[in-house]
């Protein structure tokens, strides 16, 4: 049972704190992806699990053993580095077999294992080559082989795909996922690429400036971002944010000549009435309503667009901010014409402007996975009317 327990872990470089009290429990066999922008402390956290970096405060245990004082070799983790860190003077076979050699395995057995591993990665023709004679993708495979051959309890990956070209990256991503299904070893994968993170993760850990913002399945993180930060970080193009004042349910507040109604869960509607909130709307959740200038709906004029093939990104301005809509299909609104937007209750994300956290109420339905957002109907009984501040 190689579960990993991270308790109140902090990391200081001198006086500079880069990891702030991280708590995380990783189940045996789980594929965890740590996602965050460059410099947020992902690698540092991973390296503390590996034993390459001292843990300043807190505790990490693997299989119920506190590993703070253990050497990397005593922790049973294998790591794939971003630059692969292959031994340049050794052949592919020697690279893959080095850990086994150090572990004292006899040569015949070792070669057998190395060959089996190389075969499973399609490297069996390259065993006698040096790393310098390999392509980027092949090097990446050797780095994987070096980790796999040891049959470790835990796999650690530090942005292993970021040096590959886009096509190879997608291919290796699938292979890693497939590999995890057969090996079933606990894996921690660090990346700054949200697509990679979403497609690999059993559970996603979103980090920001040394803190965990949210832990959850990719669906949870996408459909119910726990904070403005997560909402803005996950999803491309980024979520639109509108600071709004909320009037009482069922009535309009007209400020700045822009007022509109949004459907929300009744419980939440009651708690936010009369307050300020930040409304998050994903560009891909917005639909253009049949009626162009509905006074009850959010109305935007889109003045330019980017063709994406699968649809079009429509850019406009709303209350002095950029506002983006992803218009699927082939029929798009004409540039400059005002469009009213139909928004389903599931697509409305509400955040507290002071804490920047998601506003939730026990049992509320906002942002849950479900059917595609139904277009807002004026007859809907629960709405929140708001006005952009």
């Amino acid at each position, binding site marked *: 049972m190689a579960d990993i327990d991270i308790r109140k872990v902090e990391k200081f470089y001198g006086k500079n704190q880069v990891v702030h009290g991280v708590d995380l429990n990783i189940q045996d066999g789980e594929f965890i992806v740590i996602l965050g922008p460059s410099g947020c402390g992902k690698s540092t956290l991973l390296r503390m699990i*590996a*034993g*390459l970096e001292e843990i300043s405060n807190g505790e990490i245990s693997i299989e119920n053993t506190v590993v703070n004082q253990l*050497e*990397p*070799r005593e922790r049973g*983790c*294998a*790591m794939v*580095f*971003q*630059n692969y*860190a*292959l*031994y*340049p*003077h050794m052949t592919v076979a020697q690279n893959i077999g*080095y*850990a086994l050699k*150090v*572990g004292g395995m006899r040569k015949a057995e070792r070669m057998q294992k190395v060959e089996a591993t190389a075969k499973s990665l399609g490297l069996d023709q390259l065993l006698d080559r040096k790393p*310098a004679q390999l392509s980027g993708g092949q090097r990446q495979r050797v780095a994987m082989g*070096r980790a796999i051959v*040891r049959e470790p309890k835990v796999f650690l990956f530090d942005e292993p795909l970021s040096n590959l070209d886009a096509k190879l990256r997608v291919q290796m991503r699938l292979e890693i996922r497939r590999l995890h299904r057969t090996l079933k070893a606990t894996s921690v994968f660090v990346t700054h690429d949200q697509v990679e993170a979403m497609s690999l993760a059993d559970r996603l850990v979103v980090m920001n400036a040394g803190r965990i913002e949210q832990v959850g399945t990719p669906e949870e993180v996408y459909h119910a971002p726990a904070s403005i930060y997560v909402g803005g970080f996950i999803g491309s193009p980024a979520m639109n944010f509108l600071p709004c004042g909320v009037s009482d349910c069922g009535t309009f507040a007209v400020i700045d000549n822009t007022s509109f109604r949004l459907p929300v869960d009744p419980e939440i509607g009651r708690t936010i009435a009369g307050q300020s909130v930040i409304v998050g709307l994903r560009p891909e959740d917005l639909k253009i309503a049949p009626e162009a200038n509905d006074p009850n709906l959010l109305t935007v004029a889109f003045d330019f667009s980017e063709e994406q093939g699968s649809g079009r990104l429509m850019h406009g301005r709303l209350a002095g901010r950029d506002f983006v809509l992803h218009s699927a299909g082939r029929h798009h609104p004409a540039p400059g014409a005002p469009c009213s937007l139909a928004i389903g209750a599931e697509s409305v994300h509400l955040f507290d402007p002071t804490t920047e956290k998601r506003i939730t109420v026990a049992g509320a339905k906002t942002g849950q996975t479900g059917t595609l957002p139904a277009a807002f109907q004026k007859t809907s009984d629960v709405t929140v009317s708001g006005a952009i501040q």
Partner: protein
Amino acid sequence: MQKRAYFKANWLAYLFIAPQLLIIFVFFYWPASQAMYWAFTLEQPFGGGNQWVGLDNFRAVFSDETYWASIWRSIVFAALSTGLAMSMALVLALFADRQLRGYRFFRVGMIWPYAIAAPAAALAFRFLFNPQSGVFAYLNTLSPGLWNPALSGVDAMTAIIITQAWKQVSYSFIFFLAGLQSIPRSLIEAGSMDGARVMRRMLDLQLPLLAPTIFFLLVINMTDSFTDSFGIVDILTEGGPARATELMVYKIYVDGFQGLDYSGAAAQSLVLMALVILMTFFQFRFIERRVHYT
């Protein structure tokens, strides 16, 4: 494309390199040509011009038993002082690279000896090696007469080897440290993830990756101990006792400027030069092939 400034008038270019060329000419080509001249000629007994004698000077040199002894001695000296200097430098560099406590101080301190001229270093070691009052005199408290470089040839040889090695350590140290620091940290980390401990990582990863540096330093140190050990020998032992430390360079000086046999000394210089060239050639031919460059 970057635009380069270049000079239409070639004389300006020549003017710029003239000082360097002059130095090379005066201190290298001129003495070398003089050595050539003297090596194949002999001054007449009462002066009045040199006579062409072909290879006579070389025959004389090679039929001299003391010369063969000095060649053998030089080889021993070069091998031992190079080995000692490089192994000490490597150990020190490995420690400095591990960033143990105080490594910043040692990293700088280790480089200082390189700034000291050979005669000055030799003078300091003359005090250290003094059998009555030097640090090495403690050896004599263990057993009287154990250490006396003025009487024992082996002791004297030991003394010049240690001094030469000490002088060479810092140079090798700088290169080893630079070499170690150019090995990507993640390689060493990969090694420790693979289960290798400090010593194992040094042997399996750091040393093989240092091979180009080791080879370079081998060539430099060997050459240096053949050609640049004059100051140390002259101040520490003057070639004694009983020629026990008379290296090839020192014998050139003794025969040429004390024995006033210019032709013999010139012939010896050419032999020394040929030996160093030959040695370097063999090093490149047989050792470099086993060096892995990344």
